[in-house]
């Protein structure tokens, strides 16, 4: 009986050990691949191309790190201001919803439209920072860090891939190219930025290594 039991157990043990080894090999193989920040889902990615994707992202990065974008994506809770990205005069603060607090809510000074003349607050009907629970910081991020943050719904404002693509035409995003007198526009035109943004996403949204 004992011999019969041992003979029966041996193949089970062998199969179990082989299963563990094969699982480990499969698991480790994922670690060596240069995966994009997102996986290919349905027809959203047309053509995975890590070289083209990273090249496009470097253009995106140039724009997002320019003052017109980065100033409202600060690392702290005070927005930045000006072409030199100094802390916003009078230190208005983000607040819970990103719309400021007390007597310095964003729309207290920032009107629905730009105003004529230098040094007046630029305008947009939806002026705000990202909320406190999802700060979407650009300031201080490397290209790799920023790419991963942008593509992750947990850090990008819960955006799906399609919403990310559409975000290039968001009102406040486009306002970065029209912020009134005395404010330098981003280094690429909106059209060039949008093309780079969509190229980056549709070729796999790869994150640069650094």
């Amino acid at each position, binding site marked *: 009986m004992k011999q019969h039991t041992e003979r029966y157990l041996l193949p089970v043990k062998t199969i179990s050990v082989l299963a563990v080894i094969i699982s480990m090999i499969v698991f480790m193989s994922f670690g060596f691949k240069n995966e994009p920040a997102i996986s290919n889902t349905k027809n959203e990615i047309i053509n995975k191309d890590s070289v083209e994707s990273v090249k496009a992202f470097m253009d995106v990065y140039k724009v997002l790190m320019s003052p017109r974008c980065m100033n409202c994506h600060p690392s702290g809770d005070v927005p930045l201001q000006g072409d030199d990205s100094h802390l916003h005069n009078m230190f208005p603060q983000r607040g819970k919803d990103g719309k400021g*607090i007390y007597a310095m809510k964003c729309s207290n000074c920032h*009107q629905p439209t730009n105003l004529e003349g230098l040094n007046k*607050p630029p305008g947009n009907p939806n002026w705000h920072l990202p909320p406190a629970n999802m700060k979407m910081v650009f300031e201080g991020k490397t290209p790799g860090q920023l790419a991963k943050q942008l593509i992750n719904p947990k850090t990008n404002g819960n955006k799906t891939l399609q919403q990310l693509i559409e975000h290039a035409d968001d009102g406040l995003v486009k306002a970065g190219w029209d912020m009134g007198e005395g404010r330098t526009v981003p280094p690429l035109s909106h059209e060039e930025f949008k093309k780079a943004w969509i190229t980056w996403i549709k070729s796999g949204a790869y994150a640069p290594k650094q």
Partner: protein
Amino acid sequence: MITLNINKKNYNVDVDPETPLLWVLRDTINLVGTKYGCGIAQCGACVVHLNGEAVRSCVTKVSRAVGQKVVTIEGLSEKNDHPLQKAWIELDVPQCGYCQAGQIMSAAVLLRENKNPTEKDIDSAMAGNLCRCGTYLRIRKAIQLAAEIQRKGK
């Protein structure tokens, strides 16, 4: 013709809708408590309430106020007995007085939203209101006193 609701009263004014609210208040309606300090929303002297929020009337076009409720320093209370006004008088806060309407209007929003403001809350709320006479210490104390008055329902 534009109809504005200011301090619970309606005014019909014949002004360009692009005119800053500040000038309509001062020049057209003759409510001169709100002051011009810089014209670029940097000093806070022009703060009024638009639906309860502390907007800077020097950059706010009058068209934005149409159909909304505007409150100026003159309308902050019916009998000049808002806790802040009481505290301001008790502690003799103003020197020249020019910035004080704006200071009080900004502080009013703070005390409406925060019944027990800390020093940091006062910093955060009031950093946008400048005082060339340097009455900041008295302003701070007056806000604390007003909060106490408000809490005690005096």
